[in-house]
């Protein structure tokens, strides 16, 4: 039963992930955090692993979350869940719709959807930044504003923001460099 539930959760994620890139992240985040399957911290680490290992990011995260809850079988169930809507919808489109891209309604849908997905992904980044750049827990206990900011992390954030925009290397390089720096400063 629990596996069926896992399947259903990732089926929903697959169905409502539109627009590619990191669009699956806010959806998976909402599911796993609200069910307390993972903390924000664990989820952020899963994103890092998924971005720096082979395979589509959405599939990697689904695999990881499924494994963390129900082991190897969970990872298979979650992955099949997230890809199932794709397989069904694409087969229907390939069969039925000749000129899918020219349909006015599709164009309309995406006019609204694209900015919304942009906002959703920004939201996912903002909630991860609360644990990556700020010490929300420490601030909650001490109440001092100075405790809220994780200074080395914030400095590192701006350095990497500059670097990634100046030199366009594959994300994996920056992840490795950040890991090495992290070992020395955190």
């Amino acid at each position: 039963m629990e596996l069926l539930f896992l399947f259903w959760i990732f089926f929903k994620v697959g169905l409502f992930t539109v627009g590619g890139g990191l669009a699956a992240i806010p959806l998976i985040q909402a599911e796993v955090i609200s069910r307390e399957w993972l903390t924000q911290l664990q989820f952020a680490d899963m994103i890092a692993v998924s971005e720096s290992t082979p395979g589509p990011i959405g599939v990697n995260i689904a695999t990881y979350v499924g494994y963390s809850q129900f082991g190897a079988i969970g990872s298979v169930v979650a992955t099949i869940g997230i890809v199932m809507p794709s397989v069904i919808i694409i087969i229907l489109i390939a069969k039925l719709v000749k000129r899918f891209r020219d349909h006015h309604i599709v164009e309309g849908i995406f006019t609204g959807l694209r900015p919304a997905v942009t906002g959703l992904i920004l939201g996912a980044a903002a909630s991860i930044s609360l644990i990556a750049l700020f010490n929300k827990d420490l601030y909650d206990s001490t109440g001092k504003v100075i405790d809220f900011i994780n200074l080395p992390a914030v400095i590192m954030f701006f350095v990497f923001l500059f670097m990634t925009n100046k030199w366009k290397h594959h994300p994996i390089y920056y992840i490795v460099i950040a890991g090495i720096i992290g070992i020395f400063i955190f």
Partner: protein
Amino acid sequence: MAEKIKASILWQLYIVFFRVGFFTIGGGYAMLPMLRKEVVEKYKWATDDEMMDYFAIGQSTPGIIAINTSTFIGYKKAGVLGAIVSTLGMVTPSWIIIISIAIFFEQFADNQIVQSAFSGIRVVVVVLILNAVVKMGKKSITNWISAAIAVAAFLIIFLTALSPIYVVIGSALIGVLMYATKREVTE
């Protein structure tokens, strides 16, 4: 039309998409050059134009682009079975690699060095997602309505417990309405 699909074609589809999944880190656009090389140049399953069409459809349908594209090519080549086999090929490397890492990570998660490394990596995860958002925003936010949709979506996901699914459905409906009213005005 009841063509019999040879097992060898299915095997080939599986292997090709396994390779693409295994050798591309990041999915989406990162996958396109590798996919082109295998599908267009090596196996000639599709032309460049068809490939771009599949990719564009993959982007504008629900699901992960890499999966959508592989499903499409698999279906065109060998029907429903081809679609399923291609998708399985694409996800198998993720299973193998992620499960291995998860097992490894379980043992070292409490290690101080691993924790410090991930404290640094989390900072970069925020940077990388933010860069992706800026790139997407430049294309998707073109007028005040789209800017308002983006801000509303951000506030809803960040400040409320509402599922992002409602944001996806709601924004798609707004888009359809915008398009319908625009057409009425111009016609």
